[in-house]
């Protein structure tokens, strides 16, 4: 069908060939927005990986395009100009499900360069589907003295009710705050009144569509931003600005995988992971697979794969010392992943294996807390 826009604004579909193109439209010149930024405000760098902050449908292509210079963003969300001045780095225009470890690395380098270049805070715009993975990846690769804030929108930016503007404004407030770590800033509830600040290694998307999909698991959010006042409050244990010295260790070993165990899972499936350097299992309950999976797991481990157990419960800690299966898994050489989120454990494993050649030492690092991903105490309930 050919889509026609009527003068009333309605679109209808008609059979191709039932209408004739008489004239091509005059190409519309994209209006360039020039905005004056306040020199007295701190400088933030906005690194874009997929345009969620200011995007709209391009009628000529039918797809959503992201507009990405400071002018476009400030035109779309004028309140941002009251918080900081901005420079913009378009890194990628991808849907977040197409994110790869190599783009995480590029992102880490870009953020590092911006901080080195004097940015007092970083905002990373990111699709929400895999935002938690990227936030965890940057947490491990970067030591940052300034806030690195991931932000996105659950409801598309082309709707008046989009959460993009409030999330972006709250992200900017967090990025100019006293914070000094990698975080995700998104709606705290369905209301347009508060955003939560989540630690990059403890956050997970817990709903497919709601604004407040992002939740800190195992800990409370490390801060919040009120809207529209933009007041930021930080928890006591949130890492403060300047506490860490800027550093980057951007190596990742992409030969790692994450699998979820389910009843009846065929041991043959593990064959696909032969030759992998690392494997995270999201096991049942306290961290279990079926007994049938233990021999192939043992073979994997003996051939050099580091296997880390996490729990698909998302909340709580792995303990493979309670039941027989667990003990057998430990005997086979599986490493308990503590209370790490499966996704954070995967990213950490990629980072650890790339940075620590010694397997035993690497295994030990998987159980150490590097960036808040492993809590010593299970203090927080569901």
């Amino acid at each position, binding site marked *: 069908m050919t889509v026609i*826009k009527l003068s*009333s*604004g309605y679109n209808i*579909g008609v059979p191709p060939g039932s209408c004739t193109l008489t004239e091509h439209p005059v190409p519309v010149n994209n209006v360039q927005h020039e905005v004056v930024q306040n020199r007295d405000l701190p400088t933030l760098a906005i690194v874009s990986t997929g345009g969620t902050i200011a995007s*709209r*449908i391009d009628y000529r292509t039918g797809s959503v395009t992201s507009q990405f210079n400071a002018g476009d963003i400030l035109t779309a969300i004028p309140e941002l100009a009251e918080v900081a001045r901005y420079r913009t780095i378009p890194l990628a225009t991808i849907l977040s499900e197409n994110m790869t470890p190599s783009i995480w690395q590029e992102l880490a380098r870009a953020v590092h360069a911006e901080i080195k270049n004097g940015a007092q805070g970083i905002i990373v715009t990111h699709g929400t589907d895999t935002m938690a993975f990227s936030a965890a990846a940057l947490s491990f690769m970067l030591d940052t003295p300034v806030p690195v804030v991931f932000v996105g929108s659950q409801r598309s930016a082309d709707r008046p009710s989009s959460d993009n503007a409030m999330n972006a404004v709250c992200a900017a407030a967090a990025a100019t705050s006293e914070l000094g770590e990698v975080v995700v800033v998104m709606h705290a509830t*369905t209301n347009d009144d508060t955003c939560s600040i989540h630690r990059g290694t403890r956050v997970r998307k817990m709903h497919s*569509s*709601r*604004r407040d999909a992002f939740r800190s698991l195992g800990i409370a959010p490390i801060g919040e931003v009120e809207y529209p006042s933009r007041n930021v409050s930080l928890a006591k244990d949130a890492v403060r600005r300047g506490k860490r010295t800027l550093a980057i260790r951007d190596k990742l070993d992409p030969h790692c995988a994450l699998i979820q165990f389910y009843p009846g899972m065929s041991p043959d499936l593990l064959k696909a992971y032969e030759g992998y350097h690392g494997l995270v299992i999201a096991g049942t309950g306290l961290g279990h697979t079926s007994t049938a999976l233990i021999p192939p797991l043992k073979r994997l481990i003996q051939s050099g794969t580091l296997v880390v157990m996490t729990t698909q419960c998302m909340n709580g800690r792995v303990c493979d010392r309670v039941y027989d299966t667990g003990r057998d898994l430990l005997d086979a050489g599986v490493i308990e992943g503590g209370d790490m989120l499966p996704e954070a454990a995967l990213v950490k494993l990629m980072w650890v294996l790339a940075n620590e050649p010694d397997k035993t030492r690497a295994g030990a690092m998987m159980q150490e807390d590097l960036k808040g991903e492993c809590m010593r105490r299970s203090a927080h309930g569901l």
Partner: protein
Amino acid sequence: MDYKATGLVAGIEIHQQLDTGEKLFCHCPTTLREIAEHNGEFCRYLRATVSEMGEIDRAAQEEMKHDRMFRYYTYDTTCLVENDEEPPAPVNDEALSVCLMIAKMFAMTPVPQVHTMRKLVIDGSNTSGFQRTALIAFNGALPDGGLIETICLEEEAAQRVKDEVFSLDRLGIPLVEITTSPCMHTPEDVQKMAEHIGMVLRSTGKVKRGLGTIRQDVNISIAQGARVEIKGVQELDLIAEVVRREVQRQQSLLAIRDELRKRGASAGAVAGADVTELFKETKSAVLKKAKNIHAVVLKGFAGLVGREIQPERRLGSEMSDYARKCGVGGIFHTDELPAYGVTAGEVALLRTHMHAGEQDCVILVAGANGKQASCAINQVITRAKLALSDKPVPEETRKMLESGSTAYMRPLPGAARMYPETDVLPVLIDDARWNAVVIPELLSEKAQRFAQEYGIDKNYALQLASSEKLPLFYQAVTEGIKPKLAAFSILSTSTELRREGVDMQKIPDQAYLDVWHAVDSGKAAREAIPDLFRSIAAGSTSAEVLAKLAPAVSREELENIVRNIIAERRDFIAQKGKAALGPLMGVVMAEVRGSVDGKVVSEILKKEIDAATTPK
């Protein structure tokens, strides 16, 4: 008035809710709820977004003048789709079928493929900031050569509870929007056309009934005037009055413009000024509360700002509507002052301060802050400039006030308000689907048939045809009940009892049939029907109430009863003569407890009274 001479051109948009099982884009029921039943609430802001063409719609821009936080009430019958927290489900196929049926009844042409659009509405009535709508068919025929331009399938907006609070139960109920061409030229034409379209819609049997389930928007313009869209006319009877008043308003605005020009009036040459200081000691509650009071002089406007342009509305009311868009409560103007606690002294001071002459009008606005007050003053200047311009009737969307006058809502929206709903897939309307659409008999035709077949009065027949109890009527006729009896019970008796407060919903269809059979067989009298219904509505079964009736009496027995009663009341009859019939009727009916037809009683009673009063 000779409306044709005014150049009146009018069209209507009819919005009719459909009675489908589920909402248009989610699987919630289409049930309206009591506000008190809400089980949660949340709050949101909305901001205008650019269209595909990169523009912001002017109506949306207007709503953005003032940041507003909207609150929404949720129910156990609403879901994340109404909350704008989940993408919409595919278009409800039942609603689409009803819409196609209506389109076919108007002999319209369906679009080959339906595309759902987002119509930008950021007044809070849609959580998403847009109303989903799809063009389904176009070019329909109306009586007298009228034309329907389009029929669209839309989702209903949320109901405003108060100010910025909305209830989500109504949001998403399917409705059809029927837009006629500007083919009407008198107020009465408009009303008649609305009635006709309403009748066609009800003929489907698939539309919601009751107040608020159908709303008319009226598009009106006169020569030299402008197209104005008046929203939300709920009562059909008011349509003609709304049209008459809009003609009056447009004519008045044209006359005011001419007068202003004659006077050499001007607006906006002098900017607004902060006059907060002047009112430091004021007794006016509104001004005392305000943080910032701004004023502007409208040169040559004196007397015209306060001139009535339609009942209860002045040019000042129009300015006030514009100013409210900035969040202020309204305006004061010197045509109406001193009043509202503002003294003559303060007015004189204000005039001097603003260098206002006799011919000038000074406008005051009271704002919560300087930004709000200056926004409002600028709106007043904008409206005043329009009053002076070549087009003194602005193209506007207006809302109907109770009496039939109207208030400004926002500029007429343009095509820029439409944006494709990317979350809903297009739907094909192929020949097979269109050909399979069966159209029902029109109520008007049905009524004509009833009148002929059953010998019922035409008005009754039309009411009956659109009655929810029509299936019951058919059943009764099939069972051999006299059509007139059934029709009378369903229409008159029920209505009277309902007005009395009887809950007619409690009477099952079978009870109606039982009562009618009893009347037909002579076991119960016609007069007994209201009483029988009252008892059934109060909780008795039809068997119980019918059993309580006195055993049927023969004519001979009845004559004896009547004679006895007359014998006992000789004096009364001697005194009243023929007028004794009424009171005695009641006495006899009480005796026979509804088991005899009142007609027979009255006949016998009349004969016996005659006999008793005629000198022997």
